[in-house]
């Protein structure tokens, strides 16, 4: 969403015009976003909307066959869009921490927690084995893992899902990163463990001044932890706002559809029908013009097939739809 919500005086992460394509299909179609120090920016959308591809593209971890282009990719004041793979590898796991959805697949089952955690420190910081182990224990303790010394000798399968995710978080924070990219970090967890994990992340963020880019499909998680939100659909950011502004006045029909589909105690009663969005996220070929949501949108007009410029609902609330900012008040 070009020329919107620019507050990038000292943003930790600045992305402008990020595009990713796989073969002839466009997965990410020119997104702009920034994350400041101490801020959590949530990227939210359904599967297939391009949120994970965006995160991988920022980290330079796209699979072979994917093409990335980006106008500006700023990290802590430096342009990292043109860095070689070797120099990116030095940043990842060091100044940029990463957490993935499924700790069972992102931890190596054949190595102990200790050897995986100390490898990060030995590789990036050149620490000796014993010093690295000391630091790993301290970090495990910090993220609330009980008996941290014992954990170093354990294998991933010996830990519960919640513990594994804490180990992942500890590992991502070992080198004191300035930016943390978390892709669905709590999706595989129970609601109780999810609540504890989100709280831990928020605490660590305050303590370390982390900039966090959090990817999720759950608007409940967004409301709980985000400062700013970008709603993604079919490779585009269709709505971007502060969390307060977005939940006070969700404006894009897609955002409204997502919110209507969630059963909320108190709001939806037994007997009411939940809203659902017909159809599926389309695959977008190169050269596509117009609003990608138009085939599923109840308010689509012929004009939606032409280029839709972004509009502002308020100074910190942008959306990409033909309709006036307060259109939904009439229908609500």
């Amino acid at each position, binding site marked *: 969403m070009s020329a919107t919500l620019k507050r990038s005086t000292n943003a930790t992460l600045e992305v402008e015009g990020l595009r990713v394509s796989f073969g002839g299909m466009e997965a990410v179609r020119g997104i702009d976003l920034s994350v400041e120090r101490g801020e959590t920016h949530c990227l939210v959308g359904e599967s297939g909307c391009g949120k994970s591809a965006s995160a991988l593209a920022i980290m330079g971890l796209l699979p072979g066959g994917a093409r990335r282009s980006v106008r500006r990719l700023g990290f802590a004041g430096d342009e990292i869009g043109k860095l070689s793979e070797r120099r990116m590898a030095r940043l990842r796991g060091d100044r940029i921490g990463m957490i993935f959805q499924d700790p069972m697949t992102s931890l190596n089952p054949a190595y102990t927690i200790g050897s995986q955690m100390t490898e990060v420190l030995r590789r990036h910081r050149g620490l000796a084995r014993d010093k690295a182990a000391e630091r790993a224990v301290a970090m495990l303790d910090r993220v609330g893992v009980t008996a941290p010394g014992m954990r170093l000798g354990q294998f991933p399968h010996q830990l519960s*899902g919640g513990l594994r995710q804490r180990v992942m978080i500890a590992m991502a924070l070992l080198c004191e990163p300035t930016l943390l990219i978390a892709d669905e970090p709590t999706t595989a967890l129970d609601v109780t463990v999810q609540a504890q994990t989100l709280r831990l992340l928020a605490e660590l963020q305050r303590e370390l001044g982390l900039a966090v880019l959090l990817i999720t499909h759950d608007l409940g998680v967004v*409301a709980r932890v985000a400062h700013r939100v970008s709603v993604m659909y079919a490779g585009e950011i269709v709505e971007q706002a502060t969390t307060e502004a977005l939940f006070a006045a969700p404006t894009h029909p897609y955002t409204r559809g997502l919110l209507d589909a969630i059963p*909320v105690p108190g709001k939806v009663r037994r007997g009411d029908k939940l809203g659902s969005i017909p159809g599926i996220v389309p695959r977008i070929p190169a050269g596509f013009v117009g609003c990608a949501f138009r085939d599923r949108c109840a308010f689509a007009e012929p004009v939606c097939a032409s280029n839709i410029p972004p509009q502002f609902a308020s100074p910190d609330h942008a959306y990409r739809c033909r309709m006036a900012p307060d259109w939904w008040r009439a229908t609500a």
Partner: protein
Amino acid sequence: MAELIAAANLTKHYPTSRTTRQMLRGERPVVRAVDGIDLVIQRGESVGLVGESGSGKTTVGRLLLKLTEASGGTLNFDGAAVSGLSGDSLRRFRQQAQLVFQNPFDSVNPRFTIRRAVAEPLINTGVPRAERDGRIAEAMRLVHLGDFHRYADKHPSELSGGQLQRVVLARALVGRPSFLVADEPVSMLDVSVRAGILNLMRELRDRLGLTALYISHDLTLVRYVCERTLVMYLGRIVEDGPTSEVISRPAHPYTQALIKAVPRPRTDQSREDLPISGGLANAVSPPSGCRLRDRCPYAFARCAQEVPALLEVAPGHRAACHLTSPANAAAA
């Protein structure tokens, strides 16, 4: 109203690995997955079963379907003891009681066409070939894939997750069952699709008068389909009541925590710590007395000494907590 399912003191213990010392002592430690539950489901009733992973909820579903043999207790289906079923009577039971799987991508053979996948229960129960197509079309209409011929010869990979979950439902319904167990039927689906499936399940309940058990870790989803909800913790039922009661006036501290843990899509939600801490206790050697006591902020001496019984706290609403039992209600 007639009882369809009646379980008394139903128990499932799984043997677990032993240490050398336990072997020498002749001890046989077991995981107490389900540890003595009483459960009655009336004909036409939709019951939700909620708990964290490891609470034993999936094992209860498997026991009710005779997919695993109970270690103790009794279970009656439509007046007959499930343990005594064999031969023809077992085949009839298999047709009457069906399971809806969690992950539609894993539970439909990728090499079968949709027609073949849905036909499976008919083939197993010996429905003549001539009748099959009609029955399949009927089941597909029920799940709103009415344009049967559009889907019949497709393969699972050509369908979206939501469509595939409808196919899984159609397969469960094609044998005209009277009892359905749905284990996390929407947890693998996107929110926009999830709502459609929930709407459909409710419609099926009303139209076919199905008796159903919905297993989920998310109370808000259960609220949407079930008039009655059971909460399980570490192999025991800790709360049982009308869903609206259980959600608006949860009696058990565990239920209170489960409700509080669900992130809501609104910014004014509480971000406080959960009332319960840590994770599930060990099901091999659970705490004495009340099994929640090591995580419960209200635990007192009696909780370690005495197992709380499931007692009525309001008409039709029972909880297993010493705080709400008559002897302590005054003190609490």
